[in-house]
């Protein structure tokens, strides 16, 4: 059974499922694919997977979500799981937030919506290697 996972976080379901299908199409059954509709749900998922000893390799997270924003979320994840590769995927560049995430969450990459498929996949491949 696969013990490695990729987590997608976005408050819009259409983004989540289309993103998941896209990633899954490229990486197949090598990984598990998890989705969360908010930063809070994502933090829960991370805890659960950790309990189940499933290792999250990459998180692809939106920035603008209700309540906790992407940068804050990734910083919190980074405190506990510094090894997870963190990618931000958002429709709006908030420079300060990106800088903060780069500085405090070791943000691996920042991709804007609407994203280019090959850019996303290449980023993930590079992050996974």
């Amino acid at each position: 059974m696969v013990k490695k996972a990729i987590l997608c976080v976005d408050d819009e379901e259409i983004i989540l499922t289309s993103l998941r299908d896209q990633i899954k199409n490229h990486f197949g059954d090598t990984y598990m694919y998890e989705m969360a509709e908010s930063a809070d749900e994502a933090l829960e998922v991370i805890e659960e997977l950790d309990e189940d000893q499933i290792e999250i390799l990459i998180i692809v997270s939106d920035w603008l979500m209700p309540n906790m924003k992407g940068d804050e979320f990734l910083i919190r994840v980074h405190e506990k799981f510094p090894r997870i590769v963190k990618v931000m995927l958002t429709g709006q560049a908030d420079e300060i937030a990106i800088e903060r995430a780069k500085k405090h969450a070791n943000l691996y990459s920042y991709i804007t919506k609407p994203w280019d498929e090959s850019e996303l996949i290449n980023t993930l491949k590079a992050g996974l290697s």
Partner: protein
Amino acid sequence: MDNNTKGTILVVDDTRANVRLLAGLLDEQGYNIQFAFNGNMALTSVQRLLPDLILLDIKMPDMDGFEVCKRLKEDPYSSNVPIIFISALDEVLDKVKAFSVGAVDYITKPFQFQEVLVRVETHLKLRNLQRDVEEKNAELGQANQQLSKTLADLKATQDELLQSEKMAVLGQLVAGVAHEINSPLGAIRASISNITNALDYSLQQLPRLLTLLSPEERADFMWLIETITCNKERLSSRETRKLRRVLKKTLEEYNIDQSHLLAERLVEMGVYEDITPYLRLLKHPESMFIVQTAYNLYIQKNNGRNIMIAVKKASKVVFALRSYARYDVSAEMSKANIIEGLDIVLVIYHNQIKRGIEVVTNYEDIPPVLCYPDELNQVWTNIIHNAIQAMQGKGRLEIAIRRLEAMPIDPASTEIDLPTSTNPCIVVTIADNGPGIPLEIQDNIFKPFFTTKPTGEGSGLGLDIVQKIINRHNGKIEVNSQPGRTAFSIYLPVKYETKLVKNK
């Protein structure tokens, strides 16, 4: 009139001696004299230089004085020149005729020169006074025209201000609105790619599947495809993993291989409650291939649905933008749904709201309101914009709409006198839980150019515009502010009544 002389007088008489006599006497008095010996000459002279007064003989050959007078009075150019007839004829009938053709006076020959002089002076004075009045009238007319133009300009400027204020607000929101469009665009782009890939797989898989399955199995497969519902509720990550574990166990109990991968796909497709209809397929040696084929069809269907939702979202934003930016100055009042207007503004502000505002709406059923819908949208925009800024982007925004049987009367106001008992209205209350408006500035917030925002952020016109728009609707606005709750209540009459303004 020439400043150097007392005025120009035209003397008309076919008797040259008379002309000479009168001209000589008047000349001595300082008048500028012209003369003519017959009617035609008189008309020509008037055309060349308009005199201030005409002394006109009645009895002349060819054209008599009456005819000359009539013609001069008919021409607007000369109609205002006073004409005094001088004639030996002193019958009553002729005097009446003289006045009826437009003369101002009548002197009979033989005349006393002092009489002529007094009458000439009097009529010149009258003529001058009349001319003064005419000039003043013309000036007034011009001033009036200028005022009307200024008023129209002001109105246009006000409309422009209204629009530019709206556009300034929009400018601040553009980045957020772009996000609202980029997000669905991202989903559409990814979904199309997913559909294309899944379709390629399906085209390879389906021919093989058809040869692989028996007619019964084929029927099972069709049943599976039909059951894959796209409208299922999305399961949380936790639920999904729990269902996967349960289904994996169930599959293992049936001795089905690759239980984990099968369970993952089946749960995603919404097949987890009862798998008995598909047991024949799941126990098939090629079960993974069969499920994967169904899964690829599911991907196409689900991503197609994603695109539908994304297009709807983007359209909603574009519609809101268009409705918001539209501004028809000449628009007539129309019946509109207030809630739809509020929704448009909330879509425009969705991005800002998402950053930390909780919106609580409480709408009663309300009838359509006769209003200027675009202008009301600006009212909601201004108040919601202020509320979000007051809360510094984080807090609770309450929007309530209620019906009232009558517009409440403000005892302090003498301005509006509405037939309240027959005037049901609606109240829109927009409240924030920000720090409140300090008491000392509450009286100022509706004044033009009053702003508490940093230079460049607010024109200070927002609430002034709001007030004006609401006045145009015969409505009223109230503010109730204390630390922790600031509420603006807008009362709008449902049925438009002619506003009765007491003249102050």
